[in-house]
């Protein structure tokens, strides 16, 4: 990891530790105040606990032009990205995405879409519905490795993270505590539950928290829909397409709508925020990730709406291209943050319980 980022985060953490006015805002400060000196692993853990709600920045008496020049949300955001990059496997992929995200996402979607169209032209599609456009076995042959690779990659990264932050053996209570916090996105609510300071300087607002929840739950519903479809296909011999009143559709449709609207709202909201309070270098990669996620959802919805028309094969190719890109990029894009956050929250539960 980059020593200058660690050094800057350490300098700021020491000032925060002598002040403690922000201790009520989020998980970062009680965790910070538990330490006296900050090792690299401590700082990495703090960086991944931080949800960039910015409450501490606007409350801080030491922000520029004060000579202490505190900007903890920025320092931790930069350190956070650096930690993800350094834990990523294979590593160059992560370094590339955060800085060249838009191009990589676009190329991925288009490249894979062309690939899917080619497979179709070369022609194995003898099934029904979508499988007429791309055979089921071709889909599985492509998506199974594309699903397994990110899981393996993330597992390697999280192990490295866990070792660096001194993580201990997991207990159910730690995991439950972390999931409870993540489910409510408590750390985007400030201690008083009124949200974060994001789109309008120091005004507290739930906008970011609620939009983020729409995205997270939308994604989880879509994921559940896919999982249910897989089970219906393999266990019950019920292949797609599914009717409206079926579990995959009942999960996937609201999920897709939440995810589409959530990502659009997030992009608009982020544009109103002050870039200097986050990681400016990751701006492009973050936006590309949100757009990609939104495109996955929107193209999925379009596929449902236009599935019976002649544009279906083209939309299917674009949809599958975006899904494939999304999966392959998961360990190297902002998507990884969800996994690191959970790991950090679990570690925080462990430390909280171990504290005197």
């Amino acid at each position, binding site marked *: 990891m980059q020593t200058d980022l660690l050094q800057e985060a350490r300098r700021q953490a*020491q*000032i925060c530790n*002598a*002040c*403690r006015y922000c201790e009520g805002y989020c998980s970062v400060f*009680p965790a910070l105040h538990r330490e*006296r000196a900050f090792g690299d692993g401590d700082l990495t853990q703090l960086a991944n606990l931080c949800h960039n709600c910015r409450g501490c920045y606007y409350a801080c*008496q*030491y*922000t520029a032009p004060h000579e202490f020049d505190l900007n903890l949300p920025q320092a931790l955001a930069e350190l956070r990205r650096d930690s993800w990059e350094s834990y990523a496997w294979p590593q160059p992929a992560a370094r590339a995405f955060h800085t060249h995200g838009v191009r990589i996402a676009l190329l991925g979607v288009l490249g894979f879409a062309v690939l899917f169209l080619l497979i179709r032209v070369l022609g194995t599609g003898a099934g029904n519905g979508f499988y007429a456009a791309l055979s089921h076995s071709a889909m599985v042959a492509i998506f199974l490795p594309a699903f397994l690779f990110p899981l393996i990659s993330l597992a390697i990264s999280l192990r490295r993270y866990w070792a660096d932050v001194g993580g201990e053996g997991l207990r159910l209570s730690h995991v439950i505590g972390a999931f409870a916090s993540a489910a409510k996105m408590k750390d985007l609510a400030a201690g008083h539950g009124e949200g974060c300071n994001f789109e309008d300087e120091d005004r507290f607002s739930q906008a970011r928290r609620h939009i983020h929840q729409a995205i997270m739950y939308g994604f989880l519903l879509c994921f559940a829909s896919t999982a249910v479809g897989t089970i219906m296909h393999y266990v019950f011999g019920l292949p797609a397409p599914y009717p409206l009143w079926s579990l995959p559709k009942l999960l996937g449709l609201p999920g897709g709508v939440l995810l589409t609207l959530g990502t659009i709202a997030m992009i608009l909201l982020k544009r109103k925020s002050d870039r200097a309070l986050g990681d400016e270098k990751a701006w492009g990669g973050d936006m590309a990730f949100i757009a990609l996620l939104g495109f996955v959802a929107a193209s999925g919805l379009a596929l449902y709406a236009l599935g019976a028309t002649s544009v279906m094969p083209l939309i299917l190719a674009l949809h599958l291209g975006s899904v494939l890109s999304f999966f392959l990029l998961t360990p190297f894009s902002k998507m990884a943050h969800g996994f690191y956050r959970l790991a950090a929250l679990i570690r925080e539960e462990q430390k909280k319980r171990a504290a005197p």
Partner: protein
Amino acid sequence: MTEQYDIAVIGGGNAALCAAMTAAEAGARVLILETAPKPYRGGNSRHTRNFRCMHSGPLGPLVEDYGEEDYFADLMKVTDGKTDEHLARLAIRQSEQCLPWMQEHGVRFQPSLSGTLSLGRTNAFFMGGGKSLVNAYYRTADTLGVEVKYEAAVTHLELNGDRIEWVDFTHQGKTQRITPTAVIVASGGFQADTDWLTRAWGDPAKNFLIRGTPYNRGVVLADLLDQGVQSIGDPTQCHAVAIDGRAPKFDGGIVTRLDCVPFSIVVNKNAERFYDEGEDVWPKRYAIWGRLVAAQPDQVGYVIIDSKSLNLFMPSVFPPLKADTLEDLAQMMDLPGDKLAETVANFNAACGDTSGFHPTELDGVSTSGIKPPKTNWARPITEPPFYGYSLRTGVTFTYLGLKVDENAQCGTDKGPIRNLWAAGETMAGSILGQGYLAGFGMTIGTVFGRIAGREAADYAN
């Protein structure tokens, strides 16, 4: 300047905002003139953290109860009786209704957490500290139609008989004059004007650090006193504490405090001890040490501890100097090495049985046979590495201010000034003659800010 305001509020901190919001809610057209640029708005309120509040049962974040007599007794203890009882009791009594009012106007409180648990009954802590309170008040003031000008430095209030005729200020490079119906002064003390401080205290004041805003230069205070407005408070006195000697000249705020003195020995630049470091717990002694350090050559003290005491106090904003021998530490601190070694040796020899050492209470572990003694927490300085901090005098606020009555109204020898009120630090001397009680400054600011806002709006209407 053609705009007409009912009320001009001079200053942009807690008291000014409480006055402005109260007046605006009563229908007045209010203008705030804040000298500081927007990032530094809020004066010393930016550095505050809590509000001392009377309550007859659990209230907001406050536990148990804290009655008027308890509160007043706490105040009398720290001021040694130099307190205006009538105004003090007024502030105390009204503090209880202030807390819900503060919440209604955007302030959020939090339960007392690390290191402040002992204040859970008496002081309500602002979530995020004073700057978040200031931010919330500016938001609320804005929705109430209060206008704010930043970097608007008031230079003169024209007093004619019993009336303020006009207000002059500079803003965006131009001198402007407004003629508001009423004026509220809430622009703090004069501690950031080092020349004034030096005239009052003497040359040592040049070496003092100012813990708060550099914008409290007392321009309006001096202007009004020159025109015969009644003053109160000892003009030569200020509240000062001992802080980290490496703190910035201005605005170091809370982080520059050092809590290590009770576990140390403190020497002057000649490497001589000069006071009992273990006289009492630090919160009861830091103000005394501000004066003690001010009386030493070059107004500086040096704290020496050894490794066994390093983790007994709150972390400091800057890491301490560290050396394996006392000689090396002396060199790093520019102290005479032989003399420091001798002082430490004498101190160590005077230490006795340390088995009763207890860092958080008066443990009676004391020296014998040296002057000055150390009467608690006296353990020999023996275990390397050794650590050192420098100490300087940090000024919190000044006592000289505008004398007000129970309506926060200012006056001259001839009687009240019809349209001039004052609130906050600038009139706190009317209540606090000396000393300080944690969170009481915000109580005075909130209570008298609201009174001033109400009275000024009444007059303007």
